[in-house]
Each structure stands twice: as C-alpha cells, then as structure tokens.
C-alpha cells in the first residue's frame, strides 16, 4: 500500500509493482491513499502580477479631458491667504503693520493646486487640504470636472524609499542625539543640565556602572541650535550704527562657551556638530558646517566633526539621516499636522526631507538635482529642536526599519536621547538640577 522506499525514484517505477493489482476480482476493502501534506509553499510570482488595473491613464495636465478618470503626478501648491508674503506686503503697502506672527498659517479657505511641467489645476475631493503642504510630490486619481477643477478620488505619495542592507552592530552601542543647547540664552538655567550631559558622556558623573555604560556611547550628534535665539539680536539692523558701535554680538560669548563644551566632549567621544536655525552659518538649507575657526579649542581634536544640516552618516553600519528641525517646524506652520513625529514620518512617506523649501523655507537654489529627495531609506531618521521627545519604529513594506526620533530642544526640556544601534531602540535621557521651587521641578518629572 504505502510507498516502499526503493532505489527507483521515477514516478512510474514506484507505481510499477502494483500495476497489475486491479486485474482481479473486486476486493472487499478498496484502498485509499493519504495525500502528502504541503510542507512549505510561498508564492513568489508577485513581480509578474499586473494587479487590478482597469486602464488608469497617466496624464499630464495639458492632456486632461473633462470627465476622464486618470492619474496625474505633480507638485502641490497650497494657496494660503495667511501665508506671509513680502509681495503682498509691498504691493498693498501693508508693510507698515507687519503681519502678526502666527503659530500656524492655515485656514479653511486654503486651496490645493497640482502643478506639472506646464500648468496647474485646482484640486478638490478626497484630499486633505489642511494637511498637505506646498512642494509635496504626489499622484492623484480622479477626473477633471466641467468647472476646470480636478475631483480627487484618491492620492498617494512616493512612500518609503528602498531599504538599505542592515549591518548594525551585534552588541549595545549608543549614539547620543541632542539638540538645542541654546547657549547664550539670557536665563542660563539649562547650563547645569548641559554640564551634567557633558559629564555623563565623558564619564565623570555616576557610579562605575553608569560610567561603563557611558563608554558605550560611540558618538554624540548635536542637531543644531547650539546657540540660543537670543544671540541673534537684530539690534545691529534696527538701531543706528553709533548706538551699536561698541557692543559685542551676543553670539561671541556663546560661541566661546560652545567651544569649551565641545572641547570637553571631544576629549572623550567623537562629536558631530550640525548647525541649526540660530547658529552662525548660512540660513538656507542645506546649512554648511560651522567654520572651525570659531571653535579654536575643540577643532584641534580629530574627534570633532563639523557637519552640514541635513546630516547623513553611517555609524557602525547604521544609516543616520536628520536635520536640525527647520523642515519639520516649517511644515508644522503650514499644515494641520500638530505632531512633530507625525510630520517626520510624513516627510519620509512623501519621499522628501523638506517639501516646503524653497517656498517657505530657505533653500539653496539647486537646479539640476534635489538633494532632499530620499533615495535610500535611513535606519535612523531624526529631527532636532522638537518640543518634546518622541520616537517610533516604522516598518516598511519592503522590509524597511526606520527609527523615527524627534530630538527635543535641550534648553527647554533638558532631555537628550540615546539610540541603541543594536536594536534601533531609543531612550530619552533627562537631566535636572533643583531650583528654589524644587517641588515643582519634581512634579514636572512626574506628569
């Protein structure tokens, strides 16, 4: 009955012994054979599948015909009434009363338009006008209506870029991310915390166990705003020259202090210093590294790396990509998204680090290629100077694993974060002294 193991493996040869079995009178018990169970199966023909595609035409805007369902790829432009505009100010002579600073510039009457190489069309329908921002590249599906608007039925973004191979370390290695040291601020309350941060990293603070752990911090990345906004006094512009003649820029002292702090760090750990919005380098993205002449003490050490913003590096096989936060905070102003982590994730899905540049965010005029387009999926994607710490491990369809981190503003939160390169986990590390109202401080810790 059952197959007898033989040296013959061919199908017919196995069957041969029983070939004559049925040339006999009916047997009392007809035999049945159990089907060999399926041991392993996976369909790998996905690439060949064409999917449900009922002839979606991909059209340019100039080829649109009213009523025809089609798909259009283009760049968004969001027309916003509240968007600060120097043109408006000048043409309407409103500039005498500057527009009030607003946390967000969105309002219900905003409109979305899709642009391609030749023209643009207003969008309506299933698309969240408030959420999207100018500069986003997306594909919309729908049809042009008689009134010349495009009725969107669905839309999609570029989605996560293709993954990079994972070569991360097998043991615990940490990278410390901090941003917004805010040196030179008037209050200076974060100074002790900053010093504690330095002391932990350099192995001064803590018991021996903690120090041995701190030795596993392989790198410190300072994500911008090393100096406080207060160092950017606009006095020199607004005041008469003779009034500001002998005053020293507030940033001078702050940079000296930065130099000292960096020196302390550099004697113990490699440090990457990214410039941020308030730091003394160019304003436009990508911001170029701080000049090392500003940091005569620290730049003597090979461990100090003055880098650009945005910054991308491979540390122990883990690809880091991040900015000092201007891209996210700018989107925050022009979108209904309130959560920095959400915006950070959204930029990753939209395939562009900073879609709002150069519309509302300063940007160098690249005209051949756009370096902000994400072509490889980083393992750690962070933004600096966020209001508070958040992190999330994002899993992509193609096996991408991205740790999203919003690095909090250190001067406001006294919090930095530690990324474990082994398993892409992230943990905040908070510092505090005690104040006259230490109870309050402790309460703050609790909530």
């Amino acid at each position, binding site marked *: 009955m059952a197959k007898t193991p033989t040296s013959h493996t061919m199908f017919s040869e196995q069957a041969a012994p029983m070939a004559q079995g049925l040339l006999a009178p009916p047997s009392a018990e007809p035999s049945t054979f159990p089907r060999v169970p399926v041991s392993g199966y996976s369909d790998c023909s996905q690439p060949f599948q064409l999917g449900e595609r009922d002839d979606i035409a991909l059209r340019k805007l100039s080829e649109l015909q009213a009523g025809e369902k089609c798909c259009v790829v283009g760049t968004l432009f969001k027309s916003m009434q509240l968007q600060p505009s120097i043109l408006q100010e000048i043409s309407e002579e409103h500039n005498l009363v500057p527009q009030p600073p607003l946390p967000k510039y969105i309002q219900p009457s905003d409109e979305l338009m899709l642009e391609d190489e030749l023209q643009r069309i207003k969008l309506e329908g299933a698309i969240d006008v408030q959420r999207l921002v100018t500069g986003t590249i997306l594909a919309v599906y729908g049809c042009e209506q008689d009134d010349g608007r495009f009725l969107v039925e669905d839309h999609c973004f570029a989605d996560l870029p293709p993954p990079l191979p994972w070569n991360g370390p097998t043991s615990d290695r940490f990278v410390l991310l901090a941003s917004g040291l805010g040196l030179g601020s008037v209050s200076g309350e974060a100074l002790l915390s900053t010093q504690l941060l330095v002391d932990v990293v350099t192995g001064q603070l803590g*018991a021996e166990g903690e120090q041995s*752990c701190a030795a596993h911090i392989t790198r410190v990345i300072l994500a911008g705003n090393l100096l406080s906004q207060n160092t950017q006094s606009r006095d020199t512009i607004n005041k008469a020259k003779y009034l500001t003649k002998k005053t020293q820029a507030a940033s001078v002292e702050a940079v000296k202090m930065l130099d000292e702090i960096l020196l302390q760090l550099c004697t113990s750990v490699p440090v990457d210093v990214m410039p941020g919005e308030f730091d003394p380098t160019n304003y*436009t993205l990508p911001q170029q590294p701080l000049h090392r002449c500003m940091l005569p003490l620290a*730049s003597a050490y090979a461990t100090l790396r003055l880098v650009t913003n945005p910054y991308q590096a491979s540390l122990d096989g883990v690809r880091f990509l991040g900015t000092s936060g201007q891209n996210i905070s700018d989107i925050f102003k022009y979108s209904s998204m309130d959560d920095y982590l959400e915006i950070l994730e959204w930029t990753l899905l939209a395939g562009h680090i900073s879609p709002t540049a150069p519309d509302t965010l300063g940007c160098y*005029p690249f005209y051949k290629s756009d370096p902000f387009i994400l072509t490889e999926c980083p393992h750690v994607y962070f933004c600096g100077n966020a209001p508070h710490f958040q992190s999330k491990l994002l899993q992509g369809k193609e096996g991408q694993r991205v740790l999203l981190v919003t690095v909090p503003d250190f001067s406001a939160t006294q919090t930095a974060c530690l990324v474990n390169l082994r398993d892409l986990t992230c943990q905040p590390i908070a510092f505090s002294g005690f104040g006259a109202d230490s109870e309050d401080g402790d309460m703050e810790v609790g909530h």
Partner: protein
Amino acid sequence: PGAWFKRAGQEEEQVLKDLPDQNDTAGQGWDSSPEILIFDTLLQLEIPVSLDRRRAEIPPHTFWDRNSVTYKWLSYTLGVHVNQAKQMLYDYVERKRKENSGAQLHVTYLVAGNLLQNGHVCHKVAVVREDKLEAMKSKLSTIASVHVYSVQKALLKDSSPLYNTDYDIVKTNLQHCSKFSAIRCAAAVPRTPAEAPPAPSPQSQRDPSAAGTLNGHGPPAAKAPPQQHKGIMGMFAAKAAAKAQDTPKEAKAEAKEAPGVSAASSKPPTKNNIMNNFFGKAAMNKLKANSVPEQPKEEKEVVKPSVAVAEPESSPNTVAEKPGKKAESARIQQKDKNSKTKRADRSDDEEERDPENVKKKRKRIKQLQSDSSDDEDVPPSPTLEEERAPSPPPAPAPKAELEPASTEVSAGGRKRKRKRVLKSKMFIDEEEGCMVTEKVYESESCTDSEDEFSKPKAPAPHKQPLLPTKREPKEERKNTKKGAAPASRANKQLGSVAPSFCVALCKLLLLVEANMQPLVTQGINQTREEFFPGHLIICLLKETDVKDFPEELILNMPEAWAGEDFFHRNQDWKLSTVFGHLKPQNDRNCIELGPLECHSCGTGTGQGVLVLLLLTSAVVSLELSAPPRFL
C-alpha cells in the same frame, strides 16, 4: 530600552559602599590622607574658589558658592580620579557627621536611574538636595547611580551655583578635562599639524604659543608640587601628625607623577593656584594679575592668523571678477558715501511723505525726452525735487556705463555743449497718489569733441516737454497704457547697440534703478545688508512689464535663468524666475538670496549683482556691483 544601564544597576551605590569598607581595614582609608585635610581646611577657611568674571553674574545670595565643593572641583584640584573624589566627599561628610561637627554641612547627591516620564522610560540624571534624595530614589524604578555631588556649608536654594563652582576649575583645566574621568577615548587626540586641513596653520602656531604660556608657569610649577606637598604637610603637620603617620602612597605617587607628566600639563599651575589660596588672597591676586593679561594675549594670537587665513578663502569672487573689481570697489565706496547722506535724506523724506505713503502705487513710465534747446531751466515740480533726492546716488554709475561717451563737465570749458543723458525720474502723482517713474533723455552741457557733439541732436523722436507731463497726470497715465509701443521701440533701439544679454541687463538696471531706494527703505531694508557680490537675484516679472523690456531679455530670461525647481509658485506671476527666495524671518518677510550664475552670457558667478523685483509695475530693488563689459 533599559539596556542603557543594565549593568549600572548592579553596581548601584557601589561608590557609596566602597569607602567605609576601606575605612574598616585600618590605616588604608582616606581619613589619614593629607588631601582630606586640605579639603577640610578649605571648607573651614572659606577660601575663595571662584573669583572671576562669572562672579559678576551671580546674584549675591549665591555667595555661598565659595563654600561649595563639588566632586569635580575636588578631582581637578587634588588631581584624583573623579570616583575617588566622590568617595572622598562621602567619607568626609560621614566622618564629620560622626564627630557631630558636620551638622552644618549640606550635601547634594547625584541620582540616576529609570523614570517613567510621558510614557517613556527615561534615564533621569538629577542633582538633588539631601532632603530630596529619598523622594527621588523612590521615584526611580531602577537606580543606576547615587553619589555625592557636592558639599557646602549652606543650604543651596537652587543648583545653579554648582555649575558656577565647576566652571572655573573646568575652564582652567580645559585641555585636560578628561584626565580624571572614567572614560578614555583613544581616538580623541589633538590633530597633528600634518593631519589638520591646510588652514590650521594658525592652530599649529597657536599650540606652541599656548604651550609657551604654560611653560612660563612651568618651571616653577614643576618644582613646586613636591615642595607644596611638604608645605602642606608642614602647615598641617600639627593636625596631620596624629593620623598621617603612614604617609599615603597615593599622595606620594601623585607628587612624583606631577612633574613627570609633561611640561604642558596644567596641573602644576592649578596646584600652584590652590597652594596660593592657602597663603591668602594677596598671593592669589598676584597670581591672577599674572595670569589675566596672558589670556587676552593668547586669544589675540589665535584670532589674528585665523583672520588672515580666512580672508583669501572668503573672497574667491574677487579673483574671478577682476575686470569688474575696480569699478565695483569704486562703486561700493561711492555707495558708502551715499548711504550716509541717503540715510539722512530718507528719514526726512519719509516723514514728509508719510501721508502719501499710506496709499501709494508705483508706475513706471518710460519715455524718451530729448531736448536740444535749453531745457536746463525747466522748473522742476516740487514733488519731483522731493522724490529725486534719494535717487541720484545710485544713478551715476549705470549712467556712465550706458553712455559710452560719458558726460564730462569741465569747469572752465569754453564750449558749452549739450549731451543727451538718459535719466530716471520719479515723482508722485498727486492725483492718484501713484509713484511715477519716468525715463527721460535730458540734455546736459558738456565739453566733448566735435564729432560726438553731433550725436545728441539726431535722435529726438518723442519730444515731450517735461513740465506738462508732471502737471497733467491724466495724460501721463494715458501714456502709460498706450505707451508700451513707443517705449519698447525705444528700448529696442538701445538694445540694438550691442545685442547681448549683459547689455540688456544693464539697460534693465538703468530703467529701474531710480525706483529702488524708496521701496528698499520700506520693505526689505533688512536684506540689503545681505546683498553682496556673487550672491543674489530675484526676478519677478509680471507679464505686462515684460512687454516693456527689450526683446532679447524676454527671450533670454526664462531659459537662461529658470531652474525648474525655482519657479515661484504663484499664479499671479506669469513669468517668474526666482533666484533667491522669499523667506519669512522673524515672522516677517524678507529676501534671502542665493549665488547667481548667469548662463546666457557665460560669465559665471559674480559677474554682476542684480536684484530685480518687479511688482505689478513697480520695481523693488536693484543692485549692480560690476559694470557691464560690453559697454
């Protein structure tokens, strides 16, 4: 997430426990070391610890500052490992309290561990007062470290004095700040001169100089430590005698090590410093007087070379721009001069104009006016005079550029000849409140050669007296509308002189230049300081304006300049090319500009600097730093 101090937890409070154990094994403890005595004395004598500029920023009630001793301060001061310093402090407090003499000692602790905060397991590192220590410990789910952070005589109200206490000692030991820490980083070594990028020649220069200053302290300091130890021993012999019979090996090793480390080591000086502390303020002040002047000197040395190096780097443009450079600098000079007068004018003007300012639109009217007759005495309207005030300063340079045979006015010239000069005039149209800009050819007297003299008389196509135009704004407006044809014709004429892009550009400059000042004053004053050679450009041209421009310009502009990415995304601007971009800054708008490359004429970056912002029909600003080559 807890991995951060998995191991740390196991060794919790080890630092605290270690010491008493050692203490029990008689004789080997810290209690007998002279360092402790030094420390003791420090506390008792209230020796000023931090006396420098930072003191000025500290409010008086933190005067206790001088009495607080942190582990770090102790570590640097005595040259011991940070963990030893922590243990010493702990031991000190324990001993004092046992003796009941430590009642007035206040201790702050450092606590670190896991804390649940906002839904995250946060590694908390906190400095707490002794009375809050247990509360803090109870909040932490895992405790990674507890150790004494500082000891002081007074109860600290807040922790900022602790930072200030450390600041000075850290600052004086900056170059060796990780010497006593628990982590060594092999990679953290100063760059060798060869390694360093070309510029750090200042650095390599500085290093010896820094070493030199240290060396200045060096010889005496190098000798000092052993002596000092003796000195201390001597000083405190009476006190120490009882306990310090067995002179601690560590201290001895320390003393021997110190001179051997290196001449550049800053430890000797610090020791010196502290030792001086013992001998009173006078000695210390002397020391201060020595060290204070040295610092600025060192800084100066640092600054000087760096500037020298930075300069060639920062001005590559000037090299590339040689042809234009001279004129440019001349122009800049001129501008500087002008800016002074302008500033004064401007403020005056603004006040005068204020009512008109409220609602004012600009219109540009281009006309050719050529008068061969004596037009000089045409009485200019008062508004014209007023408006012209700001405009003349920028005018001269381009004017000279456009008219090859520039007008030279000789003081004692016999022949008074007339020369046609293109001028921009701007005035306010009273009726509409518009700002109107007019291009006119005016004749000026000059003493040019005969053949050139014939020139001005020939072209006088549109003879239109200046006066009536001004007085009859309506007619003027009519002219603007239908005026496109003659104006563009005129421009074409000009354009045909040398049909190159640069020429057209310069003409454009000339056309709009007079309009620049007022708007700059009002709108983007801030950004003016950001305009400099090699950087720049904003061009927003509205379709209607483009009609008025020379043809080659219209043709060239979009292809030549428009990067696809940088079309301004505003529907209203039909032909728009943005080279900088608009950015909101401080929630106001201003313009930041990027570098310019002029592709069509192939002259590369920095050939000319031009800001051109055309609104409805007004020109916002414009700047040309180099004269055009083709003229």
